[in-house]
């Protein structure tokens, strides 16, 4: 491309300015990379949530229970392969700061609904034998240094008192995006010990025989339990998780706001830099027009310049962000999935190119409108 040297020479005519402008793209896109990584971590599993799984919760609210008898009634319905259920326990380990998800599972069925979870058979067997047994994700185990055989007490928040558990197994997942930092234990243990809400469970997850029938099955379930004291709301696992994330004080909105402000600031900074840099060159631009550069090519060259700044800065910034995520979750387990996907990087790159073009647009239009004779008189 015969104009390339012109663009690059213009770009680097003030080294410090070029470094600072490219640097602001770099910082912004690094931040963007971190934000989307944290965001997808908080909505953990959203991308892998399977369309052949439906989640059934109390229609009134997620924290309201459902009768345990629903399990059998759903199992008999057409299109449902397997039913399992969970109860959110909300236990605290030593200090409330040590937050991790802990809930009951139903061992008979959970592995048939969630084949993605990998547990060695001998660990699974010892888990089944021990009423106080717990299974912990491998990242959670790493975070607290737990090994198989360790005794872990959790302080109940819903059901008061100290609940003792034995770590009987450490699970992994067959897909990178599922969390490996949760704490599971027997439903039966909770059910025996808890003084209230007996005979209920938190939410159900069912596996449907045919994913294309999911909507019909969901409708049938809700219809089945309509007009009962415990009406249900059935949604795909994806929708369920998204709803769960929304309960986290709308962190996502906060992050989108931060991201937008960053990009807007970037636009102002780069636009201003480009405006100054173009204004300094009015005389030269007039000369270029004199020798035959059209208004359009002058505009094109200026936009190409800010486009190049954006491309360079964002590639470096996103590259650094990717490097950081490759280093793994820096919080040691709070962010369950710490992964910067190619899609998100492409989105960031695309956004910064838009900013780059927009930043060059107004200075470029000014240069385009510049009258040669006026500019030459100023030289």
């Amino acid at each position, binding site marked *: 491309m*015969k*104009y390339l*040297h*012109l663009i690059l*020479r*213009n770009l*680097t*005519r003030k080294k410090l300015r070029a470094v600072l402008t490219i640097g602001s793209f770099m910082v912004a896109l690094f931040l963007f990379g971190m934000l989307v990584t944290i965001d997808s971590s908080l909505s953990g599993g959203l991308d892998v949530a399977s369309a052949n799984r439906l989640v059934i919760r109390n229609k009134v609210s997620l924290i309201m229970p459902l009768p345990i008898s629903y399990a059998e009634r759903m199992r008999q319905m057409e299109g449902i392969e397997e039913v399992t259920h969970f109860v959110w326990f909300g236990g605290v380990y030593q200090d409330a700061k040590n937050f991790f998800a802990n809930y009951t599972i139903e061992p008979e069925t959970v592995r048939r609904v969630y084949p993605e979870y990998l547990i060695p058979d001998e660990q699974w067997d010892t888990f089944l034998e021990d009423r106080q047994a717990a299974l912990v994700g491998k990242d959670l185990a790493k975070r607290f240094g737990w090994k198989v055989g360790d005794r872990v007490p959790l302080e109940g928040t819903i059901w008061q008192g100290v609940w003792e558990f034995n770590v009987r197994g450490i699970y992994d997942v067959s897909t990178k995006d599922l969390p490996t930092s949760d704490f599971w234990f027997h439903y039966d243990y909770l059910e025996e010990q808890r003084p209230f809400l007996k005979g209920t469970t938190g939410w159900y997850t069912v596996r449907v025989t045919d994913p294309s029938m999911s909507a019909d099955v969901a409708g049938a379930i809700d219809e089945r339990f309509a007009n009962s004291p415990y009406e249900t709301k059935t949604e795909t696992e994806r929708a369920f998780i998204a709803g769960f994330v929304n309960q986290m004080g709308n962190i996502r909105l906060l992050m989108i706001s931060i991201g937008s402000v960053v990009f807007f600031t970037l636009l102002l900074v780069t636009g201003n830099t480009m405006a100054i840099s173009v204004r300094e060159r009015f*005389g*030269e631009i007039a*000369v*270029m*027009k*004199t*020798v*035959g*550069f*059209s*208004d359009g*090519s002058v505009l094109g060259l200026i936009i190409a310049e800010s486009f190049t700044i954006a491309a360079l800065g964002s590639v470096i910034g996103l590259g650094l962000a990717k490097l950081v995520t490759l280093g793994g979750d820096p919080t040691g387990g709070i962010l369950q999935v710490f992964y910067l996907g190619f899609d998100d990087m492409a989105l960031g790159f695309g956004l910064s190119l838009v900013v780059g073009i927009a930043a060059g647009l107004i200075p470029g239009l000014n240069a385009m409108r510049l009258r*040669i*004779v006026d500019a*030459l008189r100023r*030289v």
Partner: protein
Amino acid sequence: MVRVDCSGTDCLVQVRNLDKKYYRGNEVIDVLRGLNLDVSAGEFVAFMGPSGSGKTTLLNLIGGLDTPTSGTVTVGGEEINDLSGRRLTSWRARHVGFIFQMYNLIPVLTAYQNVQLPLLLTGLSKAERDRHVHTALELVGLADRAKHYPGQLSGGEEQRVAIARAIVADPTLLLCDEPTGDLDRETGDEIIEILHRLSKEHEKTVLMVTHDPLAAEKADSQLHLEKGLLVEAERRGEIS
């Protein structure tokens, strides 16, 4: 005496009844008032006149950088005031080379790249561009300075690069606005010598504004701009 005496086909530039007014607030500056001019192909004409008399304005109008208030400029049979912005730009690229007092080179480009600039707009291949640039630099005696940046050249050398840039696309018309105004006598003479050679040996038509009577001497004819009209001072050499 107004110089409107060129008849026949080799008359390259024809200016008729050229009026240029500038408006500053409600003040009207009447710079050119019905100016007429004929220049033959290959002629070397010097324009003189006091500062503010409209010499730059006239060159800009002939070169299609500015539009007249009224009147016409015809170059090579084409009435350039009729051309639209785009077509005027490409007409200028093909037919006119400009040389300014302050050289106006692009500081971040080498001499070679500065000279090459007008050729980027053409469909020429890299090899052809290369050949043209070297020819132009050789013509001004700077072939060995191709890789130097303007900041590494003397004023006279910079102006020679500017001349090379003006002639690289092989235009018919060279417009020079005080090309020696910023140079010492000796260097200025070299520049005038090059312009003279371009006119005589390469059949370029050169219109040059100058304050320097000695420089103007070198031209075929000298015209004075007074009160918005051209007055012939002296004619040297034979024009056909």
